[in-house]
């Protein structure tokens, strides 16, 4: 029988609206992490992310974006990174974010995310977290509460 390689570490489905979701004490026994978020907010907002409670300007990014009528790209450094550029009511945003080699202590971490909302946009971001610390926690947050029923699933991918 094949060895399992893609394990659900934690699943959160919001029973009430919430402004953030945190995965803590993340299992260090995998090669990569994948975070899948599907959700809405009561009003337009941007779902963002920090790791290890790091709020410093340690997240460098380059991104591309298309909304059906225009495409653009940008780059910069910030105290967090975006899972996707916006999240809205009604049509759920869907994002998939890979945290590569998250337990490594000899390199900065690469994070790749793609997502969007079918009525608004699609985008992709490449992020460098400028730290050699292993990732032990992930916090997802937004300025507007995530709606009831929004889901956040964290998977570990075997080495």
């Amino acid at each position, binding site marked *: 029988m094949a060895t399992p390689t893609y394990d*659900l570490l934690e699943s959160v489905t919001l029973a009430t609206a919430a402004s953030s979701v945190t995965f803590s004490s993340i299992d260090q026994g995998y090669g990569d992490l994948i975070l899948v978020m599907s959700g809405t907010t009561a009003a337009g907002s941007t779902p963002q992310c920090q790791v290890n409670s790091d709020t410093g300007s340690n997240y460098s990014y380059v991104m*591309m974006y298309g909304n*059906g009528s225009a495409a653009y790209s940008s780059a910069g450094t910030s105290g967090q990174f975006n899972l996707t550029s916006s999240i809205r009511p009604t049509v759920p945003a869907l994002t998939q974010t890979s945290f590569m080699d998250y337990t490594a202590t000899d390199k900065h971490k690469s994070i790749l995310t793609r997502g*969007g909302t079918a009525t608004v946009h699609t985008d992709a971001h490449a992020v460098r977290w400028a730290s050699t610390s292993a990732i032990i926690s992930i916090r997802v947050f937004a300025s507007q509460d995530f709606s009831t029923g929004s*889901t956040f699933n964290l*998977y570990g991918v075997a080495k």
Partner: protein
Amino acid sequence: MTMTLVETITVGSGGVSSIDFTNIPQEAGADLMILYSGRASNLIEKLTFNSDTANNYKYKMLKGSDTAASNNGEDAASSITFRSSTELGQTANTFGNASILISNYTSTTTKSVSIDAVSEHNGEVGTSYRNIVAGSYTTTSPITSISWNSNGGTTFEHTTASLYIIS
């Protein structure tokens, strides 16, 4: 284990008019993932669910070619469009590919779709596109079948598509 292979389709000699996954097992709260490697008669692929070709799909596609980034989308489409194949006549043994994620596919609300794909032809003008898509299927029906075709054309031999349930 939470990523379970449901079915792998390998296209044989002569090709097929569509890739079809039917009678998909229903697992509440789970996601679907499709990993695809293909050659077809067109670069453009059309994805539908439950044999539904009404205007129940929305999508935004962002694509990059050899020279520029561009994008398009529809808010009342009969399918979700993406580009993941290598056309007939292009370099032998070269295949496009795609990763398709469908969130909470048994839901009775709108289902979201995220696609990461490339139509590969050695980076040549007009035939190589890297593209990402945000899509949705705006019905209350759980997804029980998935189909896509090469814009009405043929999907060729050695194309493979694997469907997984992620739970």
